[in-house]
């Protein structure tokens, strides 16, 4: 049931048909752009773009429901922590202070703080679809070849490919061992003390790790016997050739990133857009 989180469903639309390399580069360019800028106008632009592409890709809500809950919880915690620990950070950044409400001596809500936190909220929301797009619309077998496409050593790519290949297997092993131990009376629920729960987790980890170590031996022997790592380069069975749509998409992503960095450098003179000045 849990491995449903990571199911790849093949679809025939332009997002799925892009090469994995294009999607990886696009993902990197756009996440870096939105990570760098604190200009809410740029961030809203990226937000609209990424949600539009998410809609076009035909990913269903049920596929990403779990993720959205995690993200919402994380963002809520982040926002509350920021306000509790640094209620005047906005003022520090923008250099002015326009009060809205005064809760106490320390907790004063200013327009600057509000802008900073709202910007930050949208900044994190805008990159969510990008990661989902990349992970859910790229065939896992193609993932390694696209990493190799950005000049990462194929040995490293192979490690990532093995991770994706064996993730469901190890998850299944984990569930089997966990259920077997629970049927023998191991309590995994919240009723136990933290120290007991760590001990119980160890009871599951030990067999899991020992079986993984055996697997490592088997797989690495098999790869060695087939001459893995003999040459400097290798070809990939699951690599999609670059097409016209790939180049169009890459140009568009690079364009967006350039505009964002350009606005930051030449118009805002830094990462922050300051409407208060």
């Amino acid at each position, binding site marked *: 049931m*849990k491995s449903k*989180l*990571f199911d790849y469903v093949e679809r025939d639309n332009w997002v799925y048909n892009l090469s994995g390399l294009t999607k990886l580069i696009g993902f990197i360019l756009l*996440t870096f752009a939105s*990570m760098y800028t*604190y200009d809410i106008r740029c961030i809203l632009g990226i937000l609209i773009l990424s949600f539009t592409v998410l809609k076009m890709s035909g990913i269903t809500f049920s596929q990403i429901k*779990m*993720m959205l809950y*995690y*993200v919402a919880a*994380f963002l809520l*915690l982040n926002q509350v*922590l*920021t306000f509790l*620990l*640094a209620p005047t*950070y906005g003022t520090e*950044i923008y250099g002015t202070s326009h009060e809205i409400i005064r809760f106490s001596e320390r907790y004063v809500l200013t327009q600057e703080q509000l802008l900073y936190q709202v910007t930050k909220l949208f900044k994190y929301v805008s*990159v*969510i679809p*990008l*990661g*989902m797009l*990349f*992970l859910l619309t790229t065939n896992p077998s193609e993932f390694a070849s696209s990493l190799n496409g950005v000049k990462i050593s194929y*040995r*490293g790519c*192979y*490690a*990532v*490919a*093995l*991770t*994706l290949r*064996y*993730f469901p*297997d*190890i*998850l299944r092993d*984990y569930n089997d061992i966990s259920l077997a131990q629970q049927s023998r009376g191991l309590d995994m629920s*919240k009723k136990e003390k*933290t120290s007991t*729960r*760590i001990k119980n*987790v*160890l009871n599951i*980890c*030990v067999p*899991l*790790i020992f079986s*993984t170590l055996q*697997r*490592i*031996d088997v*797989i*690495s022997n098999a*790869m*060695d016997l087939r001459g*893995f*790592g003999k040459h400097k380069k290798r070809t990939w069975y699951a690599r999609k050739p670059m097409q016209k749509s790939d180049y169009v998409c890459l140009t568009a992503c690079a364009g967006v990133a350039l505009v964002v960095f350009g606005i930051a450098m030449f118009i805002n003179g830094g990462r922050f857009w300051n409407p208060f000045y």
Partner: protein
Amino acid sequence: MKKLFEFKTKTIVATGLGAALFFVLFMYVKVPSPVPETSLQTAYGVGGFFAAMFGPIAGGLIAFIGHALSDALSYGSPWWSWVIASGVSCFLIGLVYPKLNVEEGEFGKKDIILYNVYQVVANVIAWLVVAPILDIVIYSEPVETVFLQGITAAILNAVVTGVIGTVLLVLYSKTRAKKGSLSKEG
């Protein structure tokens, strides 16, 4: 003599499967800690174990790949500063690798102390230096929050890496036959 940065087929496979294991534990096996809103990530114990067994490159990549994938799956996009800090912590633990000989069944008191010194130093560097600085540089997070989170992470991860990592290493070393454990009968 073991080389610190070798990357043979076995290291690659260990990296791949180790990262999958890290990924599974990181996503599903969290023990809520006594500190509210935080959890003990058992995955770091396994990360420490693999780092000590297969070296810094495997360790660093395991934590990096495992953390990045699990973040991407749960939050849509990895929180890069912490992903990098994870990689750094297990990379640094891996530096102890040439000094240990777990494969040959040796993991005594001296080795336990050695492993734990390395892992505490590694966790302090990763969570009190690397993670907060990257949080400020990459994400412009306020200084107060990042150091509070950093201190919590350093303590919790050091506890997990210490307890789970040590137990796993001791247990594994016991399953291996010691070098020269056979003697010829007269």
